[in-house]
């Protein structure tokens, strides 16, 4: 549960966020989280190239209506920038 990124979150932060969470928040999250995605896959064992393509295509069919900027969603510096945005927006 604890973030591995720049802005430290305390256990108390997580407890409060969990207490504040509602079913509507989760339903909205379920609808929105896959609007833009980047897929990263590691496929091991007896997996042929055709099977690998089918595995990723099945994910893309459901969870990739639009492609997200790869660096923004996977790289650590981008997360730091997001954290800075949060701090700045909370001060407005």
């Amino acid at each position: 549960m604890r973030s591995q990124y720049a802005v430290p979150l305390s256990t108390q932060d997580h407890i409060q966020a969990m207490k504040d969470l509602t079913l509507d928040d989760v339903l909205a999250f379920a609808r929105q989280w896959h609007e833009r995605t980047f897929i990263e896959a590691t496929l091991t064992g007896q997996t042929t190239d055709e099977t690998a393509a089918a595995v990723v295509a099945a994910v893309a069919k459901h969870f990739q209506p639009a492609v997200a900027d790869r660096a923004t969603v996977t790289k650590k510096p981008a997360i730091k920038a997001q954290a800075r945005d949060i701090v700045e927006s909370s001060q407005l």
Partner: protein
Amino acid sequence: MLGHEGEESLYAWLQRDNLVEHLSAGTTCHGGDNWVLQLHLVLTTTGLAQRETVVARVFSALREFASFQAFPDHVRDEVNTMARTHYQFQPRASSVFGAVTKLAQSLRREPLETYPQQLIETKRVDQSQMRKLWLHLQSPSNVIVKLVAPAGALEAAAAAFKTEQHMGARYAVHKFTPRELDRYTDGGLVPNRTIAFPRPNPYIPRKLSVSSAPLVAQPLVIVPKTAQNDDRSHVVTLDDRFFGDPVVHWSVRVHSPAIRGDSAASVARSAVWAALVDEQLRTPNYTALLAGLSFHVSPMATGIALSLSGYTDKALAVWANSLELVKAMVPKQTAFERVRDRHLRSLE
């Protein structure tokens, strides 16, 4: 039958009313000839408050199974197929001592001439013996119920608590009361016609074989291969050239800007959503699990991780069906509260 988690199981019946989080069944050997059947239930807060109902439903399920005329052949055949498959493609044991101990224990139960065939396969199910077993189990006089719970949840019984002298643990023992006995025997049980033997499992593997590619002696020389690397995805495959077993391990991380590890609210949303999905997939995917295929959904700091491990034969079918279910999942308020409470308990 008791530990099954399909749509027509005891587990599904208890889950529908938010009484349990998990259920499992198995046997333990006590000495050479004694076996104890154990049913392990993890209760929800509601289940703890209504524990008599939970126990009554267990007895009710036992009575339903006893009323069935014949143990279905397809269940026996599927159990045999999976036992043979697991034996044929068993993972290498990391603990030699553990493996040898297990072998030594099982060797006591079957002569070397046939070992391990009889322990693995059930040739015939004796219907009358099976019926006798169900009847024996449904009598409360043959059953012990153990309840482990926070002391605060058992206030009503607090006066009866004793303290164990070595560890200082608090405990209480009591016999079933006449009222409980009435509730747990024929007269007091509520019949449930939705409980049934499992239907044929479509995911039982039929075609499995060790890799035909030449195997290598050292796994360290295997190099990952990039199958795809563009603006949509980065896909790496790693052929198993060391064991060659007919299994796959797929790990797919779906990164999304909507999920951020630096926001407690975002972490809470994705953690609870992933746990809800994982929990709700449990019943529809239980047949896949019995066939050696497990699918999971878990949260990450930057997205959602999807994974599948198991035998190759039906892996892609389980993968595709599971993704359909993940997308279609709509959680209910009771399930949401149960999962959020579980996360809160782990944080506190």
